């Protein structure tokens, strides 16, 4: 069976990136929404919209990460079948 080559720089980058990007998406959504609420006197609606956008963006980032991993797994499995039919 083919050894699944671990690309550790990529794995490390993915792990660190996802965690902080999700946190930052919520920070931008929350603080940006609060700032707009103060500016347009619409509290708390724009903050809530910001949070919804942040949650959707976080979900999108996680989904893309998952799809990348699935694609990578499929590539390894295909290679494995070709080498060991």
């Amino acid at each position: 069976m083919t050894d699944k080559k671990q690309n550790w720089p990529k794995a490390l980058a993915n792990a660190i990136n996802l965690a902080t990007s999700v946190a930052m998406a919520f920070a931008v959504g929350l603080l940006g929404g609060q700032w707009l609420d103060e500016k347009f006197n619409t509290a708390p609606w724009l903050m809530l919209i910001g949070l919804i956008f942040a949650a959707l963006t976080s979900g999108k980032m996680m989904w893309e990460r998952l799809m990348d991993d699935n694609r990578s797994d499929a590539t390894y499995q295909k290679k494995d079948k070709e080498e060991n039919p």
Partner: protein
Amino acid sequence: MMFGFWDGVFFKIGPIPVDHLVVTQWGIVAVIGLVAFFATRNMQICPSGLQNAFEAMIVWTYDFFTQLMDKEHVAKRYAPLLTTFFLFILFCNYSGLIPGAAHIKGFQPPTSNWNVTITLALITVFAVQISGFQEHGLHYFGHFVSPSPLMLPLNLLEEITHPLSLTVRLFGNIFGEEMIIAYMLFLVPFVVPSALMALSVLLGAIQAIVFTILSASYIAAATGEGH
């Protein structure tokens, strides 16, 4: 004063004020430049000493970034920028370990001030957009409305989170570390802070690596086949 609350200006170049952070960074750039100058001033076909160490480092960084970014030509194009990020941030972080840092007026590690970290993150943002444009042309900008124009706000928010996460992570870690060491030195001036300072040697290197790897992964994402 500690940690950059002192915003003193050393001197002015025309209308531009030059503060302590800029002067500290000039010092760090001069040190890195001097080491590079001595390593390359008398290059030999069979390298030895500093030239050997630099050549080994450059070969290692090319291999490392090629592994991370998949495309070799992109890795070679951006390895000098990314390696410069690493060296500059490492030296900035370690400048906090020099006795007197954060205690002598005007001398603080540049990366413990968010103005410096956001500048570094903005350089990454420009590099990412330029690399994506170079690789895919105008099609690159299509990823902002991919898979549907309805995704534009989410894609823009995602793009904004990248430099912010780079900025906050580096600034927060180095600022926090400097604060803890300074308060420890104030409370227990001997022995105890040494353990934290030893830990900050590790932390300084980790933060430099993390910033560099993340910048490389953003460039890789912009130049990848997905766009």
